[in-house]
C-alpha cells in the first residue's frame, strides 16, 4: 500500500472510531440493505455529520466538494467505513449513483444546483427505473413525459424504488417521444417528490419490512431544465449510471459480509455447531468466497482505473448474490433449532439476513438476466429472439 492510501486509512479510520460513538453508537452495522428502516432520522443526522467533516463524495473532484480520491484511496475509505460498522448510508444513491452521473452528464448549473445538498447530507435521492412491465426488460419503459410550457409533466408508475420514503428527489427514465420503442426516445428527468402528482406506496416484503416502494406519477411536474442530456439520451445516461453501481462501494459491502461471516463463526463456536463436519465445510467455503470476492473486486477496480472493465465486472453480481443467499441458509443451519423462533415478535439480524438474501438474486438484475448478460457480452454468444412464438 502506498502512502496516500495509508493516510486515508489512518485519518478516516480515526474519524470513524471517534464519531460512530455516543448517540450514533446504536447505528453500528444497522441500516444495511434489508434493514433500511432502522433509525431513519438518526441516520440522516449521521449523513450530515459525515458531510460536515468532508466525508461525503470523497471520490468526486475537488471542485465539486469532493476529495478527488483515487481508486485505492476509495477502497481504503470504504473499507474503513465498514470496518467500524458504519451504518447503511441514507445518501447512498445521491452520492454514488446520481452524483457521478450529474458530474458526467450535467450542465455546470445543474452541478451547482444538486451536488451541494448531496454533499451536505441534506438532500436525498432515489431511483425511478423499473416498472411493473419493465423489470428484466428495462427498455420497455411506459412512463411518459411531455413538455408543457416550462414544465415536464410525468405520468406512469415505477416500482422497486428503495429509499424513496425519505428521499427529496427521484431520477426517472421516461418516454418523451410518443410511439418510440425500446431504447429510443427516452429522457432522464429529475423530479421532486414532495408534490401532489407523486404518490409513494411502500411494498411490504418477506421480512415484514418495506425496503422497496412503488411510485405513482399523475401529472407530476418538474422544471423544464431538470433533465440530464436531451430527449433520446435517457438510455445512455441510465446505463452509465448503472456502471457506477459497480464501483468501489463493493468493498464496503464485502466488509459487511465479513462481519456476517464472523458472527456466524462466533455463534458456531458458542453453540457447538463447529463440531459438525458439514457445517465446518460450509463455513470454510463461505470464508473462501469472501476472500475471492475481495480479490475479484481488486481486479475489477484496477481495470476500471485504467478505463477497462475486465471480465470480473460481469461476474461480481451473480457471485456475491448467490454467495450471500447461501450464507443466509448457512446462518440458519448454524443457529440450529432456535432458527425458527422470533424474539419479541421481531426477526433477529441473521433471520432478517436469511430472508432478505432471497431478494439478492433478484433485484438489480436477476441471476437469469446476469447469465444472459455474461453469455452475450462477456462470451459473445447469440442473443435470444424477442417475441413470443406462441403469442
Amino acid at each position, binding site marked *: 500500500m502506498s502512502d496516500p492510501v495509508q493516510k486515508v486509512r489512518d485519518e478516516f479510520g480515526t474519524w470513524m472510531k471517534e464519531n460512530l460513538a455516543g448517540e450514533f453508537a446504536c447505528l453500528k452495522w444497522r441500516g444495511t440493505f434489508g434493514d433500511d428502516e432502522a433509525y431513519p432520522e438518526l441516520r440522516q443526522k449521521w449523513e450530515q455529520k459525515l458531510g460536515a467533516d468532508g466525508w461525503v463524495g470523497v471520490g468526486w473532484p475537488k471542485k465539486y466538494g469532493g476529495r478527488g480520491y483515487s481508486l485505492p484511496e476509495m477502497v481504503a475509505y470504504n473499507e474503513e467505513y465498514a470496518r467500524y460498522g458504519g451504518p447503511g448510508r441514507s445518501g447512498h444513491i445521491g452520492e454514488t449513483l446520481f452524483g457521478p452521473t450529474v458530474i458526467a452528464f450535467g450542465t455546470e448549473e445543474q452541478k451547482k444546483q444538486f451536488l451541494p445538498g448531496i454533499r451536505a447530507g441534506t438532500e436525498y435521492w432515489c431511483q425511478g427505473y423499473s416498472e411493473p412491465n419493465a423489470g428484466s426488460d428495462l427498455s*420497455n419503459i411506459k412512463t411518459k413525459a411531455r413538455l408543457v410550457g416550462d414544465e415536464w409533466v410525468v405520468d406512469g408508475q415505477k416500482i422497486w424504488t428503495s429509499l424513496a420514503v425519505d428521499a427529496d428527489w427521484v431520477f426517472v427514465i421516461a418516454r418523451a417521444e410518443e410511439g418510440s420503442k425500446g431504447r429510443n426516445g427516452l429522457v432522464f428527468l429529475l423530479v421532486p417528490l414532495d408534490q401532489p402528482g407523486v404518490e409513494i406506496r411502500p411494498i411490504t416484503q418477506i421480512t415484514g419490512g418495506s425496503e422497496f416502494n412503488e411510485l405513482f406519477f399523475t401529472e407530476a411536474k418538474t422544471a423544464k431544465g431538470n433533465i440530464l442530456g436531451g430527449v433520446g439520451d435517457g438510455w445512455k445516461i441510465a446505463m452509465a449510471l448503472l456502471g457506477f453501481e459497480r464501483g468501489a462501494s463493493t468493498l464496503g459491502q464485502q466488509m459487511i459480509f465479513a462481519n456476517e461471516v464472523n458472527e456466524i463463526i462466533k455463534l458456531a463456536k458458542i453453540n457447538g455447531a463447529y463440531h459438525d463436519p458439514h457445517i465446518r465445510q460450509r463455513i470454510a467455503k463461505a470464508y473462501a468466497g469472501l476472500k475471492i470476492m475481495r480479490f475479484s473486486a481488486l481486479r475489477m477496480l484496477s481495470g476500471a482505473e485504467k478505463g477497462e472493465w475486465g471480465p470480473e465486472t460481469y461476474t461480481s453480481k451473480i457471485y456475491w448474490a448467490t454467495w450471500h443467499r447461501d450464507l443466509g441458509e448457512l446462518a440458519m443451519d448454524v443457529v440450529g433449532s432456535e432458527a425458527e423462533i422470533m424474539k419479541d415478535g421481531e426477526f433477529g439480524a441473521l433471520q432478517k439476513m436469511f430472508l432478505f438474501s*432471497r431478494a439478492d438474486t433478484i433485484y438489480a438484475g436477476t441471476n437469469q438476466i446476469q447469465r444472459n448478460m455474461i453469455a452475450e457480452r462477456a462470451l459473445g454468444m447469440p442473443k435470444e429472439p424477442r417475441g413470443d412464438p406462441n*403469442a
Partner: protein
Amino acid sequence: MAYPFSEDHDMIREAVRGWAQDWFDGGQGPEGVHKAGTGFDAKAWESLTKELGMAGVAIDEAYGGAGLGDLGRVVIMEELGASLASVPFLSTCGISVDLITACGSDAAKADLLPKIASGELIVSYCDGHNALKLEDGKISGGVSHVVSAANADLILLSLRDADKIEIIAIPNKTNGLQIKAHQTMDPTRAVADIRLDAVNKSDVTIIGTISEADLNELVIQSFIALAAECIGGAQKCLDMTLEYTGQRVQFDRTIASFQAIKHKCADMYVAIEEARSAVYYAATAEPAEKTEAALIAKATATEMFFKVAGDAIQLHGGIGFTWEYPLHFFFKRARANRTMFGTPTRDYERLAVGLLGDAA
C-alpha cells in the same frame, strides 16, 4: 385414480382440496391469521373435522374413523400443505393417533380415538423420555418447540419409568403444566415450549407402554405425513410459478417461453415427482421397510420443498418476495419443515448407520 390410490382416496382429495384452497386463500391465509402468527385457525379446524370429517382418516373404523391408513393421511396432508392450512392435523391425526393405536389400552382407545375422529380433541405429542424426570410421583422437565402444543387439549408425552416407557396424556389445564407459545419465522404453524413443574403423576392418564425401539420407529414413520405436506406445498409453488410465468411478459414473450425458466420448472417437477414416489412408497411399504422408507421420504421431501419454494421465489422475480403474494409463506413453511424433526443430514446419517455401521 392413479396408483397407489383407491377411489376412497380420490374422494377425500377432492373434498379437502377445494375446501383448503378456499379457506386459506391459496396459502395467503384468512385475513389476519398469518399476520397474527398464532398458526392456528380454530374455525377452519372445526370445519375440517366436523363438516368434512377428516380427523379420523387414519383411525380404525371401529373407533369412528375411515381406516384409510398412511395413504389416506398422505392425501390430506398434501392438500393441507398446498394451502398452508393452519390446523393441527399433523400432531392430532398423525403420531398421536398412531401411538394410541399402537400401545393404548382398550379404555384409552375407546376414550380418545372417537373424540379425535369427531374433532372434539386436539392432541400434541412430543418425546419426553429423555427430558422429563419422575421423582416421588411427580414429573418435571421441559421440551422445546412442540408442534401445535399451544392449541392442544391434550399433550401426549413419553416418560421413562424405570425400564419401560409410558405414554402419558396431560390435559392442557393440568396443575404444574406450562405451555409457552412462540412466534416463529413460519407464521402458519406455531410451536410452543412445554414445562412440567412437579406435575402429579396421578393427574395424568397412562395411555400404555411401549419399548424405546418401537417408539423410535413409530416416530420416524410419522414423518411420512410431514413429507406429504411438503409434496403438496411444493406442487402448489410449481403451479403458481407456471401460472405466473405463463402470464408475465418480458422482451415481448411470456417468460415461460425462455429455456432458463422452462428448465428450472422441469427440475422442480422432477424433484417433486421423485419425492412424491418416495412418500407414496413409504406410505405403502411393508412394515419391515417402513422406517427406512419414512426416513428417505422425509429427507427427500423436506429438502425438495425448501429448494422448490426458493426456486419459485426466484422465478417470480420481485413479486416473489413481497408479503402480499403468498409464496414467502411457502418458503417459510418449507424452511420450518426442513428442520422441525431434525435435519436431512441427520436422516441420511441414520440411513448410513444402517448401511455402513457407525462412523467411528
